């Protein structure tokens, strides 16, 4: 059935895909958070 994990390959494919998406989100969020943190600095 589609989406189920049967092999290590399935597991790595699934977790790595989500991890890469998390990292992309983090790369976008980090500069936004940094701007929020420092925008009122002199």
């Amino acid at each position, binding site marked *: 059935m589609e989406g189920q*994990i049967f092999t290590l390959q399935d*597991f790595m494919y*699934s*977790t790595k895909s*989500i*991890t890469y998406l*998390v*990292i992309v989100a*983090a790369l976008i*969020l*980090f500069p936004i*958070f*940094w701007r*929020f*943190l*420092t*925008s*009122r600095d002199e």
Partner: protein
Amino acid sequence: MSDTRTPTGGTLLTPFNIVAGLILLIGAVITVLRFTGGLAAVSNLSDYNPWGLWIGFDLLVGVALAAGGFVTSAACYIFGLKRYHSAVRPAILTAFLGYALVVFALHYDVGRPWRLPYPFIVQPGTTSLLFEVGACVALYLTVLFIEYTPAALEWLGLKRARSIVVKLTLLLTIFGVVLSTLHQSSLGALFLIAPSKLHPLWYSAYLPVYFFISAIIAGLSMVIFESSMAHKYFHDKMDDTHLAEADGVALGFGKAASFVLFGYFIIKVVGLAVDNNWHYLVSGWGAWYLVEIIGFVLLPCYLYAVGARDKNVKLIRRTSGLAVLGIVLNRFNISLIAFNYHLPSSERYFPHWMEIGISVFVVTVGVLVYRFIVTHMPILYEHPDYKEEH
């Protein structure tokens, strides 16, 4: 009747002294029971739960909260942020006392204090993480002692010895950073051996990284927290420089803690993704995990950020208490609460009241020694003979 007045005319029988005296008395009695009757006489430790409150709180929390020493000295002497110089001595003192009390408290758990040097001279198990932790803690405690000595030497008037130690500052700071990086992460790595005992939400191959990053947060937060306590209780001991720089230290460290907390949150999410642990989040353990992550990681991250943006020192100081509590909760979760989660409740560990008594005793000893040192030695002020040196 004995005189209960201090040389300055105040009374020794303050509520604080009475409570502290009672705690020391009870602690001394439990100490005798522990070292004459063994672990079973004073603790609920068992084969299932060989590590209890003394390791979870006194050691893991103690070491994490003592990270302010290497964080502050690295910021000042390695990254050149001299505006935080006034925070270095209090941070080093807190770290030194923290590590000294870690070793002191470890005796209660390990027993037979005369065997403490055995890992180095009798059975050097160099492949063991505990050996590495032991070696690093021993070396770093020595480094912290040397880093602290200039204050004591100024107090004793030993100028020559002080000038020699001060020349070692940069070298000691580098040693401190290296040793802290090694053993803070290794404390997390200790739990890598127990994947079946620690709940999957807390177990991760990244545990060493989590412990190290959270130790930096603990160090930054503890410096702010300790500074706010010192402001409250030792305001009269602070000189103008210390008072003028205190707000800047809180704002700078609060901003740094906010950024590191954000990074910590991200790597925690990465840990969930890598191990595919999302489904645990909808369980009871998941709710508890979310309390830790949202209440004690994201919330202090946001509050620190708002405090740093608005230059709200009061908010940052209050947030530091929340962040310190978060570190305590995290170490408790990993070593006590989510550890052996699969056991029936009858086999789960809850500390004996005498274990809690010893932990309170150890903290009280630390507070009393801290109070003695800051009221006698130049920690919160610069000694008048050395003012021109910075």
